[in-house]
């Protein structure tokens, strides 16, 4: 029944999806945290930048951002991201686009988490002489993160599925392979089912594990 899979590297394609997801997740977590810090910072210029970035990027379709990375950054401006190899370059550009896009959502999830931390926590931190960045790093963000593990799981699941957009610039991940299989094989419905199942295998545990973690790590007040 699954003869049509022969000759295709399905696992390899999903491995590419996993690599895209993990790298983009780490990158967007870091960049999103920085953006959230800017949005709550006392410096108006930083707040302005954070707000403008989030509103611009989250309202732009991911496909446009990824294509911009490829056609704009790479082809127009010659940004090679340290590789002449077309495949490696495409992968890095895709990660860049995914990070830029997902970070906006991480930032907003985190900012809602910051709002759950009572003002008194930051006041107490400042009262013992911690600086603004120490207060954010040691007191506010750790509590904010624990409050938004659930919403961040949503972002991570969306990111996993969004990696399929990288197919648009030729990154050989799962959706890219699926497209060529659908063109070449008769069992299109089954091909679709196999890939759908593959994504569920990736995302379902993510949601369950992070949901459990979120409950475990919740800050008791």
């Amino acid at each position: 029944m699954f003869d049509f899979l022969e000759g295709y590297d399905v696992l390899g394609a999903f491995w590419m999806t996993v690599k895209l997801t993990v790298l983009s997740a780490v990158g967007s977590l870091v960049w999103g945290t920085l953006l959230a810090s800017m949005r709550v910072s006392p410096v108006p210029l930083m707040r302005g930048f954070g707000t403008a970035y989030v509103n611009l990027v989250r309202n732009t379709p991911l496909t446009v951002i990824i294509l911009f990375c490829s056609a704009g950054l790479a082809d127009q401006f010659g940004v090679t991201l340290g590789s002449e190899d077309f495949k490696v370059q495409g992968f890095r550009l895709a990660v860049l686009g995914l990070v830029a896009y997902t970070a906006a959502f991480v930032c907003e999830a985190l900012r809602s988490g910051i709002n759950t931390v009572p003002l008194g926590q930051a006041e107490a931190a400042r009262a013992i002489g911690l600086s603004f960045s120490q207060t954010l790093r040691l007191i506010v963000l750790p509590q904010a993160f624990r409050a938004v593990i659930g919403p961040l799981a949503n972002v991570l699941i969306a990111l996993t599925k969004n990696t399929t957009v990288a197919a648009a610039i030729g990154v050989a991940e799962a959706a890219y392979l699926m497209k060529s299989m659908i063109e070449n094989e008769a069992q299109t419905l089954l091909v679709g089912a196999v890939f759908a199942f593959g994504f569920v295998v990736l995302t379902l545990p993510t949601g369950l594990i992070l949901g459990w973690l979120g409950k475990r790590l919740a800050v008791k007040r």
Partner: protein
Amino acid sequence: MTDVSVAKEDVAATGDLVVLKSVNKHFGALHVLQDIDLTIARGEVVVVIGPSGSGKSTLCRTINRLETIDSGTITIDGRPLPQEGKELARLRADVGMVFQSFNLFAHKTVLENVMLGQVKVRKTDKKQAEEKARALLDRVGVASQADKYPAQLSGGQQQRVAIARALAMGPKVMLFDEPTSALDPEMINEVLEVMQQLARDGMTMIVVTHEMGFARSAANRVVFMADGRIVEQAAPDQFFSNPRSDRAKDFLSKILHH
């Protein structure tokens, strides 16, 4: 307010530690602090009382600049309060603050709460910081709770931890912003006892409170505020037995006789 110097005579005065000069602050249209002049000597215990909305909490919070002021000057140990930044952080480390709602760091254990400032601000090494933290927790009577999280403690225990956290910084002066107002009645005394001990040990304290018993027994001076002004200040005996202003008489009659 000529009695200020009279009230201060029984204090071991070694100079003024906290000085507020014609301090004004507005919250929008509300003039919460109106020309406040207040001097607190080293080692003095000053209790600030007054009706709700009189500005006493705001006054307390301006002293470590958790609230900014519109005009006037505040100096601590001879140095004016700096603008927001490193300088201010350093000054805040020297001014202990205890809040009405405790504000212990919810994601850290009791011990970590008391160690954090020492390690991150004072750059004390961890072992020394832990020793000091345990000693302070012992002093306020919650040594056995060191490894618990704040939410697992009673309100009275949390507030005593908060006092230990402030003391760990080795502050020159301690500010208490209604430290017992959020506590169940049976827990108030355990906190007041710690504060009384602190006062006996010679700590300079500014205490905003509704606990008249504490004011009588521990304060060197009572400052009575109403409508954003300091209406009257005197030694506790004098103030409670013979208040001079009508506003204070009215306030005391409402809280003392029932």
